[in-house]
């Protein structure tokens, strides 16, 4: 049965290689007017690369793109915008120090224009805002907006430029379930106005809710294309991973003694990021505590606190007894293993070797140095051990760590913090950006650590991950910590309400 609607965008055998890696392999797909098409795939499947090619950030090695019947000049965001393609990036492309209006207006007027029509632009933004249900303050500084508000600005940018095709890259990754609903409402209005939508997601239940059609990518190729009405979440998941990699499930556990306690801890706000507000939290041996919540609600402050980077302004940290001067080194001394949120920025030093990265935290200890002199042989031995035990694919311990894939980098970080046998593990977004195989590995190691008696604090934006792994779930909203909910006692929707800040008013 052929779809009678017009084709608004056609991709014809798009191919893109990065060195030896083929990110997109002869991908062909069509998008019709008024359609919502979801692009699915695990991390590394090639979705973002494809979107970047569509929008002109990358140039394809082969193949072509046609928009409204006209070929799209490659590698030219300006041409894409002129053709009516608008992109809502996963990592928002907004200038924090400029206003909402300025961000939207940027690049829409000729650079040779003498002045700028402020009033007209503002009126237009306000009209679009009303028509599509995207509430914003045009004069607000973008740096002061919440994540949800910023996404609205991103979308308005595209609508302001008369986009007829919207590309959204993981739009709900940073939203609460309620905010995701609001986004879908906006998308439905856009469809009603004649726009067509292509979006990337790995959240199957959302995809099933809004998409007309699903296209599944795996290892850079299209492996399946189905109408949502004719498929199921399970079938899509199977297509995405192409096999039987089952994500580990944690068996119920019995919690032991309290290993670390935060007692009424408050920390100051840092710009738009809220500090902790009288947070009380217990980490018990043999228990995984999951911290749910949209990023930007205090998780960074909590992670920084436990990592030793900040100290409480009021309240106390106790590890058996209150520790002396709190610092990252003190946290390491106390047996806290920290897996940082950003393995490139904070977790590793790109041009250091695997050996150097392996001893980044422990180099000062008697095993690796003596009287200020490094024992590089011992360090290399340690690195070799991690490489073997954690299956880190690499040219060798003397190779620069920037050559490794994200998954292997994460495994090295995991190895260096878990090898000393820590009592407490802080895992901050540990599987973000990893492929399914690496995700399964990291999660199984965390579960194994828990089974060995460690206390694990898992911070994740992925509610499914938290609900699958955690024994106790807390929610963070604006720096406040919800009470703990035992596994299985709350649904995603209920947790979503807490994420939106609703439960706290009653509890307070």
């Amino acid at each position, binding site marked *: 049965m052929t779809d009678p609607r017009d084709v608004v965008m056609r991709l014809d055998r798009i191919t893109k290689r990065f*060195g030896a890696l083929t990110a997109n392999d002869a991908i062909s797909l069509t998008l019709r007017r008024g359609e919502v098409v979801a692009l699915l795939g695990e991390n590394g499947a090639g979705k973002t690369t494809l979107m970047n090619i569509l929008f002109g950030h990358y*140039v394809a090695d082969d193949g072509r793109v046609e928009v409204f019947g006209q070929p799209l000049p490659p*590698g030219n965001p300006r041409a894409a915008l002129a053709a009516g393609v608008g992109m809502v990036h996963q990592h928002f492309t907004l200038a924090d120090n400029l206003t909402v209006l300025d961000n939207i207006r940027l690049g829409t007027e000729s650079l040779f224009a003498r002045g700028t029509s402020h009033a007209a632009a503002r009126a237009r933004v306000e009209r679009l805002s009303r028509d599509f249900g995207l509430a914003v303050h045009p004069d607000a500084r973008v740096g002061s907006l919440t994540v949800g508000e910023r996404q609205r600005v991103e979308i308005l940018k595209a609508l302001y430029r008369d986009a007829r095709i919207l590309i959204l890259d993981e739009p709900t990754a940073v939203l609460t379930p309620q905010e995701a609903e609001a986004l879908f409402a906006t998308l439905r209005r856009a469809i009603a106005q004649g726009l067509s939508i292509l979006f990337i997601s790995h959240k199957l239940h959302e995809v099933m809710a809004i998409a007309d059609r699903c296209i599944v990518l795996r290892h850079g190729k299209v492996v399946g294309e189905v109408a949502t009405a004719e498929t199921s979440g399970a079938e899509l998941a199977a297509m995405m991973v192409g096999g039987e990699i089952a994500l580990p499930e944690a068996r119920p556990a019995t919690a032991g003694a309290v290993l670390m306690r935060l007692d009424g801890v408050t920390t100051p706000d840092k710009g738009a990021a809220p500090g902790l507000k009288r947070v009380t939290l217990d980490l018990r041996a043999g228990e995984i505590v999951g911290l749910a919540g949209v990023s930007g609600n205090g998780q960074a402050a909590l992670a920084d606190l436990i*990592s*030793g*980077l900040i100290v409480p302004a009021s309240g106390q940290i106790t590890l058996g007894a209150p520790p002396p001067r709190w*610092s*990252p*080194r003190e*946290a*390491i001394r106390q047996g806290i293993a*920290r897996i*940082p949120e950003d393995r490139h*920025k*904070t*977790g*590793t*030093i*790109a*041009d*250091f070797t695997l050996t*150097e990265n392996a001893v*980044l*935290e422990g*180099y*000062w200890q008697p095993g690796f*140095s003596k009287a*200020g*002199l*490094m024992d*590089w042989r011992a360090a290399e031995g340690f690195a070799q051990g991690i490489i073997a035990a954690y299956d880190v694919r690499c040219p060798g311990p003397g190779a620069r760590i*920037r*050559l490794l894939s994200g998954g292997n980098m994460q495994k090295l970080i995991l190895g260096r913090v878990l090898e000393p046998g820590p009592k407490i593990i802080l895992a901050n977004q540990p599987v973000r950006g990893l492929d399914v195989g690496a995700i399964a590995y990291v999660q199984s190691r965390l579960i194994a650590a828990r089974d060995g008696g460690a206390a694990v604090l898992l911070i994740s934006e992925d509610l499914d991950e938290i609900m699958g792994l955690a024994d106790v779930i807390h929610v963070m909203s604006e720096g406040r910590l919800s009470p703990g909910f035992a596994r299985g006692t709350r649904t995603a929707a209920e947790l979503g309400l807490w994420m939106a800040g609703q439960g706290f008013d009653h509890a307070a």
Partner: protein
Amino acid sequence: MRLDPIAAPSLRRQIGLPALALLTTVAVAMMLALIAGANPLATLGLIAKGAVGSKFAALETLNRATPLIFTGLAVAVAFRAKLWNIGAEAQLYAGAIVAVLLGTGALSAPMVLPVSALVAMLAGAVVLLGPVMLKTRLGVDEVVTTLLLNFVMLLFVSYLLEGPMKDPAGMGWPKSAALIKEARLPRIVDGLRLHWGFALALISALLVWVIQTRTTLGFEMRAVGQNREAARFAGMPVNAVLVKTALLSGGLAALAGWSEVAGLKGHLSSDLSPGFGYTGIIVAMLALLHPLGVVATALFVAAIFVGSDSMSRAAGVPTYIADMLLATALLFMVLALMLTRYRVVWK
């Protein structure tokens, strides 16, 4: 245009591109000679002859290299930790001042040389510590503060030489009293104009290399320089490391001034340094911040300066050709180094 990282740069690339940078600099030298109305090849020859063509010339080059090794090391140590120490000039003069303060009779042998060297290092360290503390405590960029202090220090030296430190036996030209014999660095070989400062410079380079590659402090300095945030997260005491880096860097720069006074000149005048502090930046960058490489590039740079002085007297091409060549070499070298690690892709 895009830059793609190259996973494993070939040896041909790693050696070929820097060599190309140097060749291009030579071509620029010849072009400048031509503009000045001199024969390009002859000019190059005169520079080479003036640098190493006689025993006198070679010793002059080694002498000129001594302060450059010290300031080169100072800059290399600092830049590796991403500490932009552009104030080596001021730290150099601090060391020179101490050499005079302690070397004109305040102390006597055998203490005077080692004590004055140590105090000189301390003085240089203190001069750099100010901007570094402003950086760690208040976030004030150290580039401009260290630069401005150079001018302040030069004025201070001028004040000292016209006032408290003025040579009573001087003929009006502002300079300090001469150092006593015990406070002078002896010659390495009697009869040759090379003083022990050169040997000290070589030893310093070796020590810095050992520190950087074999000690925990060196590891911390390299980590802080490459990714301060990751170093902090891993538990390294970042501010303490920056302070220690400043102490080492400032101390090394001070030794440049100290050895010039105690070894070469025997007194302090306001023209002690023709910009050794700034040239140290070129020495360090050409050596890729490697302490042992600094020795080689310092010798190279010294040869260019000494050779150009001599060539200029003979052929009339202005001596500033040396500064132009070195600045050109610096820019070409950083470009070449980037190209060894990235490939240029035209979409």
